[in-house]
C-alpha cells in the first residue's frame, strides 16, 4: 500500500514538472514573462523583456495544481477499480 502511494506521489511530481515545462514552452511561444512562486523559491522565465505580458502564478496555484492532479488521478483509479469486470 505504501509503495502504491509513493508511486502515485512520484507520478504527480512528474506530472507537475511536465506541466511546468509546458508552461515555459507556452511562455516562449506566446512571448510571456512567467514567474512561478514555489513558497520560498521563485522560478522566472523571461522571453521578451520589452513587450511581453507578465504572468505570475502564486503559491496557492502550485498547491491547487498538485491537489487537482492527485484528485483527478485517484478518482479515475477508484472508479476503474470499483467498476472493473473480467472480460470474456
Amino acid at each position, binding site marked *: 500500500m505504501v509503495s502504491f502511494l509513493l508511486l*502515485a506521489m512520484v*507520478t*504527480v511530481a512528474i*506530472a507537475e514538472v*511536465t*506541466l511546468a515545462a*509546458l*508552461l515555459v514552452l*507556452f511562455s516562449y*511561444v*506566446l512571448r*510571456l514573462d512567467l514567474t512561478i512562486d514555489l513558497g520560498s523559491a521563485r522560478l522566472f522565465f523571461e522571453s521578451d523583456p520589452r*513587450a*511581453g*505580458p*507578465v*504572468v*505570475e*502564478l*502564486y503559491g*496557492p*496555484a502550485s498547491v*491547487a*495544481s498538485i491537489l*487537482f*492532479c492527485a*484528485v*483527478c*488521478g*485517484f*478518482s*479515475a*483509479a477508484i*472508479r*476503474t*477499480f470499483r467498476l*472493473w469486470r*473480467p*472480460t*470474456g
Partner: protein
Amino acid sequence: MKALLRLYPRSWRKRYGGEMDALVDDLPGGVGVALDLLVGAAAAYASVVRDNRVLSTAAAYLHGVCVAVLVQAIAFVTLVLVSQQSQSPTIVQIGAWQIASVVRPGPFPLRELSAYVRAQALLESLPAVILLVLLVAILALALAGPRLVRRSIQ
C-alpha cells in the same frame, strides 16, 4: 519484420506467436505491415492491461493525471487569451488566496486605440488561439482514447 513481434506481450506471444510467425513470413515486408504490427502490439498490451484489475487501475490513474495536466495547460492559455483582450491587469483569486495575475504592458486602454492597433492586438492573440484549439483537440483525443481502444479490442 519478425523483430516487431517481440513488442507483443509475452502471454500473447505464447498463445499466437507460431501463427503470427507464419503469417509474417507470407506477408510482403512494407511500411503498412510494420504499422499494422505496431498498432496490433499496442492493442494487445491494452487487452492485457484491461484483463488485470491492478494494471487497469494504474492505467486509469495515469490517464486521470494526464487529463488534469491538459486541463491546467488549457486554463493557462485561456487566462493569457482573456488578458490579451483587456489592458487592465487580470487577477484570478479564490477568497483571500491570489492564484494568478497577468499584467500587460501598454499605456492606453483598448477602446482608445486606433482600428489598426486593435487589429494588430487581435493578430497578437492568434498564437494563443491556435495553441488553445490544439490543446482542446488533444484533450478530446485523450478523453475518447480509452473508449476507442476498448472498441478496437472488441
